[in-house]
């Protein structure tokens, strides 16, 4: 049995972590009262946030698993303040983690754009890598592009620092790419959180289950070690008449991926896990489709989990050699940084105006 640590940081990370816990309970609103979490492994979840209200909003994560960084109520998307705050509280955070025992793998979930998540994740991953030898993977949620210049520049620096933190892989989920999941922003957020949660649980099951065709943590490490360090996850669910080939292709298509990517051109390595009743899982069809993917990207690990009576579901983990979308994001981020600089220079003019006003400091009007 694997020992898995999942850390959700900041509002986005907390919500995805809460969604993972909810799905582990079974997904029902009241399931936490009557059900046990169905993690295949020993899973410890920790939510970290500077905003207490974000922690209080969590419904399916136990209170003891929520760490509030005291005396702060959010960072206002300021990563400099956030990193300083982490440094001041890192001992407390790491002590909490160490008290939870040994782990085989860790996932750090956060947004790249916000305050706490984007500023805490890189140094935390660095600390984990320094202290422990288990792989640490980050799941990073990219912002809506129209959310603002600060979020864009935060994302750019966060991802850069994440790479520098020696993380074992960055799994990307892009709100901009997934925003058509729900009708409004809140529904979209909830839908994205649930999508990420379902994929993470499927992945954990794939890493720690008895399978007809086995994939394990080693395979996952190999996949995640490929490419440029970025990865994404795809998922698709078929019905009882959908050919398994189609389901596999759907999981690799934009409708199944968490991040915009042409996997056949940008992919480096992949792991495909199939789950369902044996009657839906034709080995020939599976092999045929996976061979097709292999012919484009190289090596593809595959695993098959038999679940009697279940319709076929496919999880695909793909590492990317290149990503045009990420390049686009950084282009926008550079523009955003320039815009912020211009704003800063305008602030300097305001300071000059302040200097003019200062000429009458200490004087009183005479009548």
């Amino acid at each position, binding site marked *: 049995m694997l020992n898995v640590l999942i850390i959700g940081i900041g509002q986005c990370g907390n919500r995805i972590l809460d969604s993972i816990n909810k799905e582990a309970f079974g997904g029902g609103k009241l399931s936490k009262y009557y059900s046990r979490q169905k993690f295949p492994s020993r899973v410890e979840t920790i939510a970290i946030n500077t905003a207490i209200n974000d922690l209080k909003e969590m419904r*399916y994560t136990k*209170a003891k698993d929520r760490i509030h960084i005291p005396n702060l109520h959010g960072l206002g998307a300021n990563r400099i303040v956030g990193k300083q705050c982490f440094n001041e509280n890192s001992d407390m955070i790491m002590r909490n983690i160490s008290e939870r025992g040994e782990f085989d793998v860790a996932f750090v979930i956060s947004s790249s754009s916000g305050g706490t998540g984007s500023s805490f994740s890189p140094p935390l991953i660095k600390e984990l890598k320094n202290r422990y030898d288990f792989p640490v993977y980050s799941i990073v949620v990219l912002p809506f592009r129209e959310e603002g210049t600060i979020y864009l520049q935060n994302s750019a620096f966060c991802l850069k620092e994440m790479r520098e933190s020696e993380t074992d892989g960055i799994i990307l989920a892009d709100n901009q790419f997934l925003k058509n999941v729900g009708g409004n922003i809140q529904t979209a957020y909830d839908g994205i959180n649930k999508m990420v949660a379902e994929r993470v649980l499927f992945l954990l099951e794939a890493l720690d289950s008895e399978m007809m065709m086995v994939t394990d943590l080693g395979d996952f490490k190999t996949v995640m070690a490929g490419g440029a360090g970025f990865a994404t996850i795809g998922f698709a669910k078929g019905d009882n008449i959908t050919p398994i080939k189609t389901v596999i292709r759907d999981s690799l298509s934009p409708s199944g991926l968490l991040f915009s990517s042409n996997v056949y051109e940008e992919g480096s390595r992949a792991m495909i896990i199939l789950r369902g009743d044996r009657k839906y899982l034709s080995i020939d069809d599976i092999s045929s489709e996976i061979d097709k993917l292999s012919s484009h990207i190289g090596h593809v690990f595959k695993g098959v989990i038999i679940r009697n009576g279940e319709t076929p579901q496919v999880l695909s983990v793909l590492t990317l050699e290149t990503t045009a979308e990420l390049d686009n994001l950084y282009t926008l981020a550079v523009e955003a940084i320039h815009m912020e600089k211009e704003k800063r220079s305008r602030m300097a003019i305001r300071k000059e105006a302040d200097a003019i006003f200062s000429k009458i400091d200490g004087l009183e009007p005479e009548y």
Partner: protein
Amino acid sequence: MKMNRTIIHTLSFLFITILSIGVTSADNIHDEKIYEGDGYQINNYFIEVSGITPFEGGVILDVTIYQLKPDGSYEKLTTTDSTKSEDKRKEVKYHSGSVEITVNEKNLTSKYIIVDITTAGIVIEYETAVDGGVSQANYIGEPSLTLTKEVDKSNVEIGDIIRVTIKAKNDGNGIAKRISIDQGFTPGFTFKSNIYATYPTELDIGSSFTQMFIYEIEATNSGTFSLSPATASYSSSVFDDDYSSTSNSPSVTVAGEAVETSEIDIEVTADKTKIKRGEKITFTIHVENLKDGPASTIRIDPIIPMSMTYVSGSEDIDIISEKPVIQESVYGARYEKDYKITLKADEIGYNELIVKLTYNNGTGTVNKEITSDSFYVGKGEFDFLAEYPLYIYVVPVLIIVAIAGWLYWRRSQFRM
């Protein structure tokens, strides 16, 4: 009665004795002319010329002295002794005790005799010549009527009719004759009619009470009255002297004019005849003043059964010492009102609501009590639950408590 009769007999005896014996006085009657067959009465002695019989060229005289009895009979006391010589026969003497009557012939004809009568020991109250002899003489006695006046009711109200009966009996020793009755009307009463007025004008000695008069009067004034006595006026058989007797005066109380009073009628009705335990039943207390007079100081006390609880009632109902009470100062003439009272059944069984009413009807305090029809309180909707053993409840309760505890504990795990 017997005592009265004894007294009367004693008085009669004394009277007769006085008449017959008198004191030692003497009296003379001279030259009284008496025809044959006639006589002369002195008190109750009668001197009869029984016969003047021709004898040897002359006439022989027979004189008899009688004693008259109250009953109309008479007793021969003495008579002419025919064995005596003619000269000796000219005198007839009766002597008994101190009484002495002597008849002396002064002149005798074939038709009559002229005599001198000498008496001794007699106070002559009555003397007269009597035609027809002793059989025509009247006993000299005094009647004495005892008169009674009776009423058929002694407590009446104004306007009521009272029947008055007058009775009389003769307790004297002479016949009462020419009796007339004065009914003796009393102020405050009005004569209505005679029922019986043909009373006898004579009453014999010793007669029993005889109905003399019946008449009706109407009470016109209030108060307690002694009816004026009836008076009987009458005469004895030989004297024209008037006697009179008066009756008793019966007392009659006439109530004053009736005060206008009130009378409250009370009814209690329930809206149900059968309810379940825990359910409510509403009673309507209907009160009505049946009279034109006002009732005052009204108090109505519904007596709540032990197995019921008072829930609510009309605005007029006060709660005094945790009990519902209705208090009203006045119910006017013909006033009607309904009061509602709602009770809740606490126990199973038959029940009834008792309502006590107290009021002043104008003349005094009146108390009434009325009871509603009986109603039955059956098992409540959930009473069957109490019939199960305790563990039937304990187990689910424990389960519920355990679930609640679990939920609380679980929730607290997820609350920050």
